[in-house]
């Protein structure tokens, strides 16, 4: 008879307030096999863990049940603790009486009864637990970073610095991402290109980094340490080894009506183009939809002018298959579409622009050469008004429910830069709250107000319309309790940001979970912020949630540290909760292998001794290094030969029985 010990945690008052822990202790003592039961304020504390270790030794416990918080929180803690006391870590089960009980029920009697039921289910299960020993699997010493913005670049650089191979897969023709489009950066007003492009060059020059630009990840299989990715390298129609980036082709190309993506569509680019001067790789790309040669088989001018003979109209997409030990999602963000915010007149007036468009208008490499002019007529603006929270903090369904986090600061930056460069321009900012948590952030915002006389008005704008050649904003001035009309030459919308459209697909491929806003979910909101719940998948930058550049870079480095930690391991300890087949019961029917997502089940013809009958049988054999323990095979198996360690048929049935016991 197994000897079971039960430990009921108060979790301070988190559990004890709604669950009568003493009563739980008394109730579990009545369960067959329970030789020791106690309660303690914090089981996870060192003192609590000591109680558990002492009891294991004193009562020679074979199994332990902890009634506490979610196993997702402390299962690992208690298993390690059991191991310290000489008990196999897999002889520990957790009854989740906090998240699944005390926190959601108010009535003490109800909470206590449920806690007892959950404890009994865990006791029933632990009695059927078997000591398990973790196996080992190898680690491919190469990382994949999906996304080549500042987050991806920083993560890749750090990983490469540690001596591991990294591939950056970027869907656009150049790395750099959104940061490359920015003019200056807050709160120090560095030039964005000046601080980003050296990093881009470093990434290109680092022998450990391979840039796969104009490429997309199509398929990912495998598991931590052993992923396999299929990457599509889209046809650029340029032989990148030959192209020198001279740009001759760009000037000769007759098809010049392509929207310049880099300048947010504020001007045009030719069909063959280099996205921007500092693009990495600095090679051209042909837009196949726009190119006359590719669409109509006419022209071919670029091929004639290219002295490097780099142009290849017949180039095909290339498929690359590679193995990786870790994968980083760094898919970034984009501003939301403003088609649902007609009141701001974005679609009506050219002089209503987004903040990212303003970045391009103020950038020396932008469409106006850095001269701030009204997009409608190229004249000098006299008043510019900023509207904050456009689509952020919006639960009406038109925008995003969250705070986009970066807008307050970049709006202050824009206001300041404009006032600095053009002191004659009046600048208004409509705000709801100005949020500036961050080192030197509030000081920065105050400078905009105090030194640069930016006119901050608390209130939102109801509508923007054109009248007599300028824009009129009808708005609230909440502090004066007035509705005001403000004339302005330009309006800049601090547009909410959202996860890039690729995030959802990437998350699906990586089996990483995603929240309702398409931001990837971290393994723990506070304690594991750069890891996805899926082992071996890491999160870098805005794909996890809105953040500014300093925060993105620190998270990118943190992410790299986690990846390096993983890749440095010679072997990974594998989850021993894997499937296994009972050879005597196995029919060899292949149903299990059909549902296995990891190809972990193979078949062998083995000499089986079935109660004295010796015969060769085709039986399923699970490769424990490949099996991830999902258990799909156990249900596909009609004979019950296939079972799962840690979540066996009999364990789950025992839990069912315990729960249903009246």
């Amino acid at each position: 008879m197994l000897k079971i010990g039960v430990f009921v945690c108060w979790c301070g008052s988190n559990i004890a307030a709604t669950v009568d822990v003493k009563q739980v202790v008394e109730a579990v003592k009545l369960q067959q096999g329970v030789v020791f039961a106690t309660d303690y304020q914090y089981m996870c504390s060192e003192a609590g863990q000591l109680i558990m270790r002492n009891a294991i030794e004193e009562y020679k416990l074979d199994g332990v049940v902890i009634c506490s918080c979610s196993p997702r929180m402390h299962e690992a803690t208690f298993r390690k603790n059991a191991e310290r006391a000489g008990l196999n870590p897999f002889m520990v089960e957790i009854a989740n009486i906090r998240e699944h009980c005390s926190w959601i029920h108010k009535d003490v009697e109800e909470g206590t009864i449920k806690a007892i039921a959950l404890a009994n289910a865990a006791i029933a299960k632990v009695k059927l637990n078997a000591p398990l020993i973790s196996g080992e699997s190898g680690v491919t010493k190469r990382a994949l970073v999906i996304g080549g913005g500042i987050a991806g670049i920083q993560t890749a650089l750090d990983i490469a610095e540690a001596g591991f191979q990294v591939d950056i897969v970027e869907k656009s023709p150049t790395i750099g991402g959104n940061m490359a489009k920015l003019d200056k950066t807050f709160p120090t007003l560095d030039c964005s290109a000046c601080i980003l492009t050296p990093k881009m060059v470093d990434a290109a020059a680092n022998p450990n980094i391979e840039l796969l630009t104009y490429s997309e990840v199509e398929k990912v299989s495998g598991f931590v340490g052993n992923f396999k990715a299929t990457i599509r390298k889209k046809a650029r129609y340029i032989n990148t080894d030959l192209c020198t980036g001279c740009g001759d082709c760009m000037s000769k190309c007759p098809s010049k009506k392509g929207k310049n993506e880099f300048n947010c569509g504020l001007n045009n680019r030719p069909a063959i183009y280099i996205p921007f001067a500092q693009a990495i790789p600095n090679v051209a790309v042909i837009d196949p939809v726009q190119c006359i040669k590719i669409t109509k088989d006419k022209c071919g001018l670029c091929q004639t002018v290219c002295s490097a003979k780099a142009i290849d109209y017949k180039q095909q997409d290339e498929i690359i298959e590679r193995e990786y030990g870790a994968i980083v999602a760094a898919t970034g963000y984009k501003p939301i579409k403003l088609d649902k915010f007609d009141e701001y007149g974005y679609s009506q007036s050219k002089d209503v622009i987004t903040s990212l468009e303003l970045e391009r208008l103020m950038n020396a490499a932008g469409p106006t050469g850095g001269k701030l002019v009204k997009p409608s007529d190229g004249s000098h603006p006299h008043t510019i008004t900023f509207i904050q929270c456009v689509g952020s903090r919006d639960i009406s369904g038109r925008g995003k429910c969250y705070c986009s986090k970066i807008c307050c600061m970049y709006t202050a930056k824009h206001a300041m830069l404009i006032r600095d460069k053009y002191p004659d321009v009046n600048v208004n900012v409509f705000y709801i709250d100005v949020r500036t948590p961050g080192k030197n952030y509030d000081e920065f915002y105050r400078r905009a107000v105090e030194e640069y006389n930016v006119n901050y008005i608390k209130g939102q704008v109801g509508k923007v319309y054109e009248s007599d050649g300028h824009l009129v904003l009808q708005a609230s001035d909440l502090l004066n309790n007035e509705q005001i009309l403000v004339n302005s030459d330009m309006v800049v919308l601090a547009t909410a940001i959202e996860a890039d459209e690729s995030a959802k697909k990437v998350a699906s491929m990586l089996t990483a979970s995603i929240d309702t806003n398409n931001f990837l979910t971290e393994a723990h909101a506070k304690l594991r912020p750069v890891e996805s719940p899926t082992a071996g998948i890491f999160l870098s930058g805005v794909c996890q949630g809105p953040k500014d550049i300093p925060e993105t870079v620190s998270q990118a480095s943190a992410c790299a540290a986690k990846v390096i930690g993983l890749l440095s391991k010679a072997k990974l300890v594998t989850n021993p909760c894997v499937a296994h087949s009972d050879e005597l019961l196995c029919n060899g029917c292949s149903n299990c292998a059909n549902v296995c997502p990891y190809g972990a089940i193979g078949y062998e013809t083995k000499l089986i001794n079935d109660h004295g009958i010796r015969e060769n049988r085709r039986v399923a054999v699970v490769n424990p290094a490949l099996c991830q323990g999902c258990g799909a095979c156990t249900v596909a198996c009609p004979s019950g030969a296939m079972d799962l360690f840690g979540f066996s048929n009999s364990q789950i049935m025992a839990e069912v029985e315990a729960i249903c016991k009246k």
Partner: protein
Amino acid sequence: MQGLELKLKERLQKLLDDGTVDCVIGWTKGEFIYDVTPAIFTKESGLDGFVYNSFCGANLSKYLVSQITSDKKFAVILKPCDTYSMNQLITEHRVNRENIYIIGVGCSGHIDIDKVKAQGVSGITNVIDNDNNIIINSIYGDSKIEKASVLLSKCQSCKGSELKISDEIIGEGIKTPTCDERFDGVKKLEAMTAEERFAFWKSELSKCIRCNACRNICPACTCRTCVFDNARSNVAAKANATEFEEKMFHIIRAFHVAGRCTDCGECSRVCPQSIPLHLLNRKFIKDINEFYGDYQAGEESNQRNPLVNFTESDIEATVISDKEGK
């Protein structure tokens, strides 16, 4: 029919003589013409007692499962409907195709002796099958019966005369004129109220004596040890102690063969309590066809059965839970 038996016997003898096969799985005659029994004939024993007549309805493919580890070569006689089972067994590696010589036999439907007797005929001495009608010789004289009225239930929803797998074909068959659509029985039940359905199954399944005939005859139920016989499965039971266990056994049995059941109808044929077990299997088949597209288990070998397959746009189970109506 008599001619067919002679042809078969002649051919099988040749196969045994020239060493193509070591054994033959066929039928042996009993005391009466209608009590034929599946049997194995060897070279040594010869084909004495071999019979093939209108009562050889049993599906012989399952007998090969136990021979998978044998080195011997077997000839087996399969009717068109039996070949689906053979394909399914090949798919699931439950038979060794290399050691099997399949003689496909043309079929025009087999007869249920109980249905003949139910028409008031007794003392039967011989039956002459003329495809459309049969002539019965009995000690009380001869009588003629319309064949369609005495066909086995499974022949009444015949899948056709095409042999899905065979090494050679003997005799020509015709698709039995089906007297009911395959899913009529299921549809009739579906049209009932939940209470009526519950009452129907309660009364049917309460007849179950857990003799396991359905399981033993079923060419899809080939587990070495059935979960209901395995003490460690937590569902083992030898008898139906409660109403629940009656249901449990038949639901799980039907579920285990779902997507693999070829609808051969053997379960209902052999049930001593005449429980219409095929109505459970056919419900799964009907649902599979409706939910995931038409699928016939055993249509060919190495198909992927619908329960180990999926599409991203499959219907949601909530469609069932939230279904309106009875």
